[in-house]
């Protein structure tokens, strides 16, 4: 713990590395229901996973280019918004990722109990 406070930059880098993969799973899971960028960001922040637009939008674009998301520009409240949702290809991948995440979580739990 004391290392974290002594070296905030090191902790920040490790935290970002740890968060990166989790954010992908969180975004895919959140997009089981269709949302546009801003409301997605708010929903994630409300659940404790704040993500800035500079990270979220490139991530959405990458996930879409990989076929995991589909998007559509639509007008809502007199403004054009890009709505995203999980694609049929994304659904089984999300399930696999969630299984993987559960396995990692359980392994970590066992490691921490052993210590």
């Amino acid at each position, binding site marked *: 713990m004391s290392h974290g406070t002594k070296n905030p930059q090191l902790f920040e880098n490790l935290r970002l590395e740890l968060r990166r993969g989790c954010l992908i799973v969180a975004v895919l899971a959140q997009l089981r229901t269709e949302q*546009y*960028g*801003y409301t997605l*960001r708010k929903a994630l922040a409300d659940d404790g996973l704040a993500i*800035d*637009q*500079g*990270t979220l*939008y*490139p991530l959405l*674009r990458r996930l879409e280019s990989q076929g995991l998301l589909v998007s559509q*520009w639509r007008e809502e409240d007199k*403004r*054009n*918004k*890009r709505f995203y949702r999980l694609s049929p290809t994304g659904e089984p991948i999300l399930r696999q990722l969630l299984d993987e995440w559960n396995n990692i979580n359980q392994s970590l739990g066992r490691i921490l109990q052993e210590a």
Partner: protein
Amino acid sequence: MTQPSQTNSQSLLDRYLHAVRFWLPKAQQQDIVNELSEDLHAQIEEQESALKRPLNESELEAILKRCGSPIIVASRYRPQKYLIGPALFPIWQFVLKLVLVWVLLPILVVVIGPALVSASSRWQPAVWQTFSMLCTVLISTAAAITIVFAVLERLESRLRLLDRWNPHSLPPAPRTEKRPSRTQSVFEIITGVAGLLWLLPSRTTRFSCWDRWRSS
């Protein structure tokens, strides 16, 4: 009062979006800027409805600062590209040091420099000539080596040549734990670079050449 402030805010936002657009890949510029603009407008509106007044310039500035510098924001939309990637970088660094510091510098300082000085009647112009030759040769050689490695990087990222290796082709390890001598490493790198260069012209013989190089 609010009208001029709103115009200023709008122009600040436009300037920000324009700066981001400049660094984006051409094909996606409009799409990305529209989406970013929509997010920023939503943030501004939310903050304005909470404050029940239009945002002033410093409040807008804070939103833009949170979003990040235009060049960094734009860079996140681009795939990571390397001139020389992490796999080839140490080889590039080693070849560069080897050629510049251990070959060209001694040749110019120990052989060509004294030869020029002894051949001319006045030593100052000869020293100056050696110095300018040194700069030209070192810079152009470094550029040439970098270009060669940039080409190798392109080739490597497409053909994944470094993944095609065989544990049996590795050179024998020295019996003692001693590090290999400098000359040995130098020789290995020279043959390595020569091997990589050799791969370039011929497609058909590439893999056999590669194996030959690995086993040499």
